[in-house]
């Protein structure tokens, strides 16, 4: 009986793992129950895929030079102020 329940449970909720990595199936079930019928799994997949597509597209954009320059500048400032603090003893 228990194995049968488990199989049914997984069938009903397998899609959660597709969209939401690392989420425990058990906790998701109680939320779905509280919210009424679970969303269409195709809808969930489409939303997840589009969100990732959009996010990955931004991540793949070349990083503007300003950020590299900014970090170089910050590094330089830190190094100058450390040199002052160290009285030139080390760099």
């Amino acid at each position, binding site marked *: 009986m228990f194995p049968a329940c488990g199989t049914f449970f997984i069938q009903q909720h397998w899609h959660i793992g597709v969209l939401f990595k690392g989420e425990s199936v058990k906790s998701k079930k109680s*939320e779905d129950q509280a919210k009424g019928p679970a969303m269409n799994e195709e809808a969930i997949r489409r939303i997840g895929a589009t969100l*990732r*597509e*959009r*996010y990955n597209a*931004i*991540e793949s954009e070349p990083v503007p030079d300003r950020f*590299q320059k*900014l970090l170089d500048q910050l*590094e330089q400032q830190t190094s100058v102020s450390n040199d002052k603090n160290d009285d030139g003893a080390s760099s």
Partner: protein
Amino acid sequence: MSDTPNFKDQMLECIPSLRAFARSLASSADAADDLVQETLVKAWHKQDSFHMGTNIRAWMFTILRNEFYSQMRKRGREISDANGALSENMAVHPEQSGKMDLQDMQKALNSLPEDQREAIILIGASGMSYEEAAEVCGVAVGTIKSRVSRARTRLAEVLEIGNADDYGPDAVATQIMAMPALSRQ
């Protein structure tokens, strides 16, 4: 001093995902990059509070998020109003092909309350775990879960795909099934 270059390299590696996260919070791409810039400055000066070997992405996302909300408080509700204007004329109608347009998704995201938007971006798009997202947002794991759930429901309503039984398997669905690993650590 010796660990400064290492820290800088780690920050550089975070920039693409910081920009993507910022784009979800800020009202424009320019505003998002300004936010990233502020975050880098803040993070640089706070580097003593970062423990090497721990999760720098979550640490920097936290700084970015705090910076965003702090700016928002300073400017009144300006940013929120901008999003409100964008969310007019909802809902968005998907194209006949059933392919979901990225601009439609952007509009739909803008219609979400901020807490739900950041939750669905962190979990559904950036690949963070619930624990990491909870750390970034400074709330309990259960809170993140319920925000994601509400966000997902709202997005489906706005994008009118809640009852998408008429869509067969399409390119998007095929794509996600073929993705080898959605998580990045």
